[in-house]
């Protein structure tokens, strides 16, 4: 149980089962399955936390240094943010829309090399600790906003469906939760960018030089700031804002996965 690999595999199984439960709840409209789903995610988080702490202990540092470590921490961030938002706003359908995103990132982690390597000198900085740990929560919050916005769009598409109306919160509430999640994610993302810039200045001598990872974090930041403004403008509220929230999360995924696999830059070694 205290072996990282086993606890990570158990985590994957629990998250997958949780998604199955949330889907069963949603498709077959069986309420008690949403409770199972919620419980499974929570147990999943326990094993996930064990996996992360074991790894941290083995490496004698926070598990935030390579593609695998960040992916699994990112998934952990989504799971924790999910439990937080589910608890605060209490609605059952949230899991149906967030667990797929959680699994996407968790399975991406499972595909990465799990080798523990020591930190190269450029990564040895307190700023990178702030940088990466805020990124995890920022991305987690954006994942929630994405899930909630997809709900918004689905609810809008099937306005007549009584079940959806019953189990999904009102448009107003969905919009508000998405806004709260994005506000939190945006503050964090800003900290991510600022701490990253300070670290880059110390390590490479330039705090901003448009390398692909920096560029994509700028793009993400722009998308969410457009979301925030669009929401303030009456005509545009609602559906269009929701689309921006989804687009923003795609940009997040690309910043994280696409940039490392498709583009070349300073960050790519991580």
């Amino acid at each position: 149980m205290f072996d990282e690999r086993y606890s990570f595999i158990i985590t994957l199984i629990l998250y997958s089962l949780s998604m199955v439960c949330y889907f069963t709840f949603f498709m077959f409209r069986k309420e008690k399955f949403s409770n199972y789903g919620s419980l499974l995610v929570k147990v999943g988080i326990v094993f996930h936390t064990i996996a992360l702490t074991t790894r941290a202990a083995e490496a004698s540092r926070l598990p935030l240094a390579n593609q695998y470590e960040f992916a699994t921490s990112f998934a952990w961030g989504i799971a924790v943010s999910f439990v937080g938002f589910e608890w605060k706003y209490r609605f059952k359908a949230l899991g149906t829309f967030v667990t797929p995103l959680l699994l996407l990132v968790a399975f991406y982690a499972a595909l990465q090399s799990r080798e523990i390597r020591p930190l190269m000198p450029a990564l040895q900085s307190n700023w990178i600790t702030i940088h990466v740990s805020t990124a995890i929560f920022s991305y987690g919050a954006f994942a929630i906003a994405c899930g909630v916005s997809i709900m918004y769009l689905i609810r809008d598409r099937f306005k007549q469906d009584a079940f959806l109306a019953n189990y999904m919160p009102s448009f107003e509430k969905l919009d508000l939760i998405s806004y709260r999640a994005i506000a939190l994610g945006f503050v964090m993302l800003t900290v991510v960018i600022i701490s990253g810039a300070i670290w880059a200045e110390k390590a490479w001598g330039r705090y901003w030089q448009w390398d692909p990872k920096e560029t994509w974090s700028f793009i993400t930041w722009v998308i969410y700031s457009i979301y925030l403004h669009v929401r303030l403008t009456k005509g545009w509220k609602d559906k269009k804002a929701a689309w921006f929230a989804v687009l923003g999360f795609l940009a997040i995924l690309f910043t994280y996965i696409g940039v490392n696999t498709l583009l070349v830059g300073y960050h790519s070694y991580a």
Partner: protein
Amino acid sequence: MQNKVGLINIRSFFKSMRFGLILLGVLGFLSVVGSFIPQGRDIAFYQNNYTSIVAKTILVLRFNDLYHSLYFSILFGTLCLNLLLCSITRFNKTFNKIFEVPDVKKMRNISAQKVEEDKKTAVIGEIYRKYGFESLNKMEKVNNRTVYYGKKNQMGYLGSWFIHVGVLLVIVFYGYGQYTFFSTHVYGVPGEAKEVLGTNYSLEINDFNIQYREDGSIEQYLSHVNLKNNGGDILKAEDIFVNNPMRHDGYAIYQTATGWAADIKIYANDQLLKEDIFYEATTISDERGPVAIQFTKFYPDFISTENGIYSSSNHSNNPKVLYTIFFMGQRVAMNIASIDENIHWYDYTFVFENPQMYTYFQVNKMKGKIGAIIGAVLILLGLILCFYIKPKEIIITEAGKHIEVFGNNINHLLNT
């Protein structure tokens, strides 16, 4: 008249949120394009890697160095102007809002009730405490009604204003820093003192170490250096390592790279012609004659196998050099030699001695960092004010037995 209206329209469009968002959108879109095209390569790179039409488009539109292109800067400049105008316009409105008496017409009616004369004060006090207000600061008579109002978290109004000014500062100071950016480099082996070209300083390298972990991975590159001025006074003596640059008067000196160097002695007819420090991948010529030697590659732990030659570690266990000799620009010899071995070529003899690692520093001067940091802090502060310090207002009106409550952001939809 028509013209004037047009001009006013243009001006108000110029400072509008819509225009700002269009600019942001365009900048975001261009950034996406730039991230997919490798930046700052030779022209030949684009011609070889793309079809001729695409390569032409890239070069004409400057997509090969998009982020430093004129129009990218102009777009950012326009965004600054937009932010500046919008912030100036919003300044008064924003600050007035903080001190203004709330306007009942813009508030939601929350409740109405009838209360006996003698309980009125108590009820009013209860209401405003219930909504989290500490004191009702003023009373006025309006249309025969007594009006009480309370305000909280008024700083929240400043949030978006701070954000915009912060963004403006960051862009302006970043641009200034880029425009005045100075960069050079210095490298050398312990014992050398090198001038920092373009500055009044020199660097004396006292020591250079690479620290290894038990598993053989590199933990740190560490240089101990003295920074000296023209007069030879030591200004600073410090260890420079990755993530810990030496800073002096706006300059920052970074540990950025390392490589191998050796001492070289060049003899002609057994007479010493030249003695120098020879860096890997450089060439030294005998100034009087047509002969040059290149230190092509260094193998600290040399191994020769069927598949070729390579170094099996980065430790100097079996050091060899690969050298190339040129005569009148033509390559005439290339071979592997040991350290201290005499390499003969006609009357010439070359000897590589004392291989050691050199340290390489980048020296940068980027201005405007403090301005950019202040901007960044303003953005963060603004975001927190904007999202988490929600201004709340309450008005309680009293006319005879009737008490009515109005509010902004109180008793909110999700204030649970």
